[in-house]
């Protein structure tokens, strides 16, 4: 098994006719992901064509769900319209909405988060690389790739990866795959200060997933989400966990690319978070090159096999 999505999950692409959404819809189709439909208001009835694939486009998420039975959508809609696109996916009763869009105003996300509280839909992102559950084909082909991650670097297996950052996730996945260690699911929760799913939410799912045997938790400066997750891990998780925190050299008060990556107080520095990781029994990767090895050390200490 895996978390959030399986290889057979049917997905919709909101914003499939845009450059960005279209490019990644094609890559997902190439990966073998079941892209069941696209949504672009005003372009319903047209088709998104790629090689042998002919993906129907709908005017609304409701129409797309009714026609395809898709349960998940990915949002590539530009920032001014992204909050609306997320709410439409939630209103259509999807299980999961993954928002890739970078640059959504914080106020919009504050309203969205309040509006979807208590609804059945889970939101991941925004400003995230998406979610990948690798498939069993060559180079993990046949998996479910939602978002912008390179699919081919994955390998089907038993390690869960959760991160705010795209390229750091790829770094971790690449190291794991190079060591012949596969992944159950890789989740990018996004670099914004207000997001739908936290590190802790994903850690809980990995902990409950019998097919996930080890976890890599990648965080960065700013906020206290990693600390919250670490304390929960200490109390609840027996699986081996490795952690990395980016931003040890970032000066206070400067935003490091991600809107959320900004040191505001003494407790959201990298040093403070790393100290909490250690205290909570998480094996800390000294550098990003050490993430897979750190997990191997943690697994060895607990006598867990990851392959």
């Amino acid at each position, binding site marked *: 098994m895996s978390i959030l999505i399986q290889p057979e999950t049917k997905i919709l692409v909101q914003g499939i006719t845009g450059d960005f959404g279209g490019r990644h819809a094609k*890559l997902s189709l190439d990966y073998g992901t079941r892209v069941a439909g696209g949504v672009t208001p005003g372009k319903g009835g047209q088709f998104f064509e790629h090689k042998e694939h002919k993906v129907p486009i709908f005017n609304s998420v409701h129409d797309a769900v009714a026609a395809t039975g898709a349960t998940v959508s990915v949002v590539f809609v530009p*920032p*001014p319209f992204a909050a609306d696109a997320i709410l439409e996916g939630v209103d259509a009763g999807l299980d999961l909405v993954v928002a890739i869009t970078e*640059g*959504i*105003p*914080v*106020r*919009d*996300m*504050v*309203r969205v*988060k*309040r*509006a979807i509280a208590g609804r059945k839909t889970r939101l991941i992102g925004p400003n995230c690389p998406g979610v990948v559950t690798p498939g069993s084909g060559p180079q993990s082909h046949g998996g479910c790739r939602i978002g*912008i*991650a*390179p699919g*081919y*670097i994955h390998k089907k297996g038993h390690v869960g990866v959760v*991160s*705010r*950052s*795209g*390229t*750091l*996730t*790829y*770094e971790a996945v*690449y190291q794991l795959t190079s060591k012949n260690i596969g992944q159950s699911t890789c989740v990018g929760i996004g*670099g914004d*200060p*207000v997001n739908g799913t936290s590190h802790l939410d994903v850690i809980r799912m990995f902990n409950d997933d019998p097919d996930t045997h080890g976890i890599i938790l*990648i965080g*960065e*400066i*700013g*906020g*206290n*989400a990693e600390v919250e997750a670490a304390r929960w891990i200490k109390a609840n998780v027996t699986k081996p966990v490795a952690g*990395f925190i*980016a*931003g*040890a*050299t*970032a*000066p206070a008060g*400067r935003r*490091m*690319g*991600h*809107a*959320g*990556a900004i040191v505001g*107080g003494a407790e959201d520095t*990298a040093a403070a978070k790393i100290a909490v990781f250690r205290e909570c029994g998480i094996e800390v990767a000294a*550098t*990003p*090159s*050490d993430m897979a090895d750190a997990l191997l050390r943690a697994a060895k200490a607990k006598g867990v096999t990851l392959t």
Partner: protein
Amino acid sequence: MNIHEYQAKALFETFGVPVPKGVAAKAASEFDPALAQLPEGPTMVKSQIHAGGRGKGTFTDGFKGGVKFCKTKADAKEIAGRMINNTLVTLQTGPAGRKVQTVYFTVASDIKKEYYLAILLDRATSRPVIVASTEGGVEIEKVAHETPEKIFKVFVDPAYGLADFQVRQLIAGLGFSGAEAKGAAKLIRNLYTMFWETDASMVEINPLITTPTGEVLALDAKVSFDSNALYRHPEITALRDLNEEDPKEIEASKYNLSYIALDGNIACLVNGAGLAMSTMDIIKHFGGSPANFLDVGGGATKDQVVAAFKIILGDANVKGIFVNIFGGIMDCNVIATGIIEAVREVGLKLPLVVRLEGNNVNAGKATLAASGLPIVSGDTMADAARKIVQLVA
């Protein structure tokens, strides 16, 4: 995006948040007409820069204090003459300081008591939080640490907005009654409206004051805005002061590069914010010192790489360059070609270590090797970081 105090106070007035009467001047020739708009008597002169600690700052010519109390308008004019076009160094500006290009004259208010009031996003609850304290005019972090019971917070439900009972909670916490309570309640409501309507990321008044005549006023104003929301606020975008920003950062933003200058000597060029932060970290880990944060984003086109090299080389402290690209979707060979073209165009004389990983990486590495340029290749991030640190040492 940050704005100046005088701009923030003008915005406060638009939203009905009372401030002491004040006028800004951008040149010595504007002092007389500006001061003519204020009544005779005690006047404050305030240097306008985007950094805190102005009052305790020192100008590079030795003149002390970026915020001064003057008994008369004539004194104020003289003091302003010392500040304008002078460079002010505070705890937050770094040793280079900031050139004062605007001074702000305000009526010096009589202070009965100082308070603290701020509105910002609470990340844990994803809601706006109003923070208030009876201890104003001092560092709020210190108050929070030493006397947390003197800080009051209310979390605003974005679906309902600021509720009256929450305003009453704040008023009671701050100990206001009578006319002061009325004035403070109105001020808090209006300030929240401004925070919400303008997509502010932070509004801070330190100190908020009461006067002997029962007024409640914002004596200082620090406001910053969510850059992602500026597209819907042209009136706020117009307040941007490019003089307050690093010219290299402005140049970078034209190419969609996210660049922040640091004080080390190893320049970094990386794709992705998380990887860029970790690249700085790994340089430090191996004993080097990063010169910048630079995220070229997911695309990393040739134009971007050329622009990035030019910006990096504009920093005289840079003694070596570390390019770290994880080409997940992008073809590493295309990236390698872009790096070579960029190097040829800018004429590189410094050590350059490139670490490429991902899609079509072998072709990319071969292209770099065949270029005849003195580019050192690193296999992993750690390997490449070690190499650049050694080359620069």
